[in-house]
């Protein structure tokens, strides 16, 4: 049997993903987020884990460096990689939204046309504004997006929120939702065919476990 390589994203999806995968028999010693080892192997079950940066994960899977992975739908929508999207894991719920400083909320979304937008998600932002017929100036940042309007780098932001606390603490107000997101199981195009039975079983088992967990 060939190894099945699973890519896990650093960050908020990590712990939950490790737990869920262990429940369906995909586990290895020392799968921890700050692992020194880059590849963690379980020889018995023929599984390899690699832990990668969130935004890089779809690339690993698209190229087949990992056979499957777990990643937020937001990252998939932003990166548009050619991968199989097999399962909505149900956790990691958040949404991409547009926010402005609370003091500068305008009556209509269209009123923000031509303003500067700070975001980590330029493709998603452009698509969203294009649909509304709005031309914007996109400022691509890699983190701390909320800072941009405070220091005058942009008039508004497009960013991911879970609870909205950070947004509120920085006196920002959400004015539109771009799309909702949650964790997804993805697979490489070729791996999905060459390791079909194994991946099919994994999806079936995960569905069962996630369903059981969802029940109170």
């Amino acid at each position, binding site marked *: 049997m*060939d190894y099945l390589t699973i890519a896990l994203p650093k960050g908020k999806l990590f712990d939950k993903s490790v737990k869920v995968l262990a429940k369906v028999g995909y586990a290895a010693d020392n799968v921890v987020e700050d692992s020194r080892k880059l590849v963690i192997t379980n020889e018995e079950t023929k599984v390899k884990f690699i832990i990668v940066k969130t935004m890089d994960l779809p690339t690993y*899977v*698209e*190229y*087949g*460096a990992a056979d499957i992975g777990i990643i937020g739908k937001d990252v998939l929508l932003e990166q548009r990689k*050619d*991968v*199989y*999207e*097999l*399962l*909505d894991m149900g956790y990691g719920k958040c949404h991409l939204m547009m926010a402005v400083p609370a003091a500068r909320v305008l009556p209509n979304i269209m009123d923000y046309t031509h303003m500067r937008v700070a975001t980590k998600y330029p493709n998603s932002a452009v698509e969203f504004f294009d649909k509304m017929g709005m031309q914007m100036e996109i400022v691509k940042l890699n983190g701390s997006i909320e800072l941009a309007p405070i220091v005058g780098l942009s008039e508004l932001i497009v960013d991911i929120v879970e609870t909205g606390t950070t947004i509120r603490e920085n006196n920002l107000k959400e004015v539109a939702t771009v799309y909702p997101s949650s964790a*997804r199981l993805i697979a*490489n*195009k*070729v*791996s*999905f*065919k*060459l390791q*079909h039975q194994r991946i*099919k079983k994994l999806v079936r088992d995960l569905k069962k476990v996630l369903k059981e967990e969802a029940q109170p």
Partner: protein
Amino acid sequence: MTRNLLQIPYGTKDILPGEARMKRNMEDRIAKNFLAWGYDEAITPTFEYADTFDLSGADLPDESMKFLGRDNRTFMLRSEMTTPLARMVVTRMSPVEGVKRLFYIANVFRHEETQAGRQCEFCQAGVELFGEANAQADAEVLALAVQSLKAAGLGHFILSIGHSGFINGLLEDAELTPAQTERVKQMILSHNSVALEKAADVISFEPVQKMLKQLLYLQGGPDMLRNLHKHASNPKSQEALDNLLEIYSLCEAYGVTEYLSFDLSLIRNFDYYTGMVFEAYGPQIGFNICGGGRYDTMMAKFGSPMPATGFAMGIDRIILALRREGRFKDQSTWDMYVAWPEGSEKKAIAKAMQLRGDGRTVKVATSPMSYEEAAGACPMNRCEALVYVK
């Protein structure tokens, strides 16, 4: 400064000696195999009128490289080889009717993000079989694809086969609005099982709903096809399954079924393919290394309705897969190094010509040298053996 000026554009590549020689050898093996199956080579222009590509529907318009000619008509670097060959058959090869088998090994051009083994300029080898609609033609093309990948040197690969008729039959039975159908097609093309399951909920006809939800998992051998046949609700899907089973049974005669597997969600391009479609994959590389299928409506767009089937394989991706299998070694040695002392150059030339006549690869020293110098020069010139002519 100069160094920067001397770079090559994004998505292009130099193939250095060694790799180039191996690539040429590989292409020769592939070409010989195409010829053995009765396919004849054709060479078409590197660029053509963009209108020709627009007409065929085979092209990916966003990716094409276009420029203006002197008469301000738009030219396009060929983005694939099927359209040029089809154009050639219709305009240059009379009578148009009758079966034609053609092959090509050519570079094509696309503005795309470079991926594993795929640059903006890349090499494709492929065949087209014009003028025959039956399963024999499709089986021949499939079996030839298997043999060509083997001729290229690949050991492990599978051909995944689907059928556009199967999915189209399902979609017709689903009774969706045109907009909903379009969305479902998009989900199938992007392999989005999550969205597909949700979208299928609106379908009231249960067998179709179930099959669409499971579509990406409809993978397996001929038994799966037979089993599906019992559950298929519409004649179009059933015909597609019959067609695939007939193709498969012919492939048994070709002795290639160990490389075949079915994937009924495989579609490649809804508007272009009209029957059997397939892609080939190897474990070494996350992308398909070969793809093709039946396209019976395209020739009508060129004014000569005619069925057709064929495939293209990505030479650069195959090289990458071979490298990962450890089977692609740059070959950059010669058999003999012929060296000579002052005054013996004519004898050395005669010796080299004799050795070349015997089929050896030979380098001749460009200046006189002692035996000791020659013994050092021989390995430096990557030659296996030294011939010192006094």
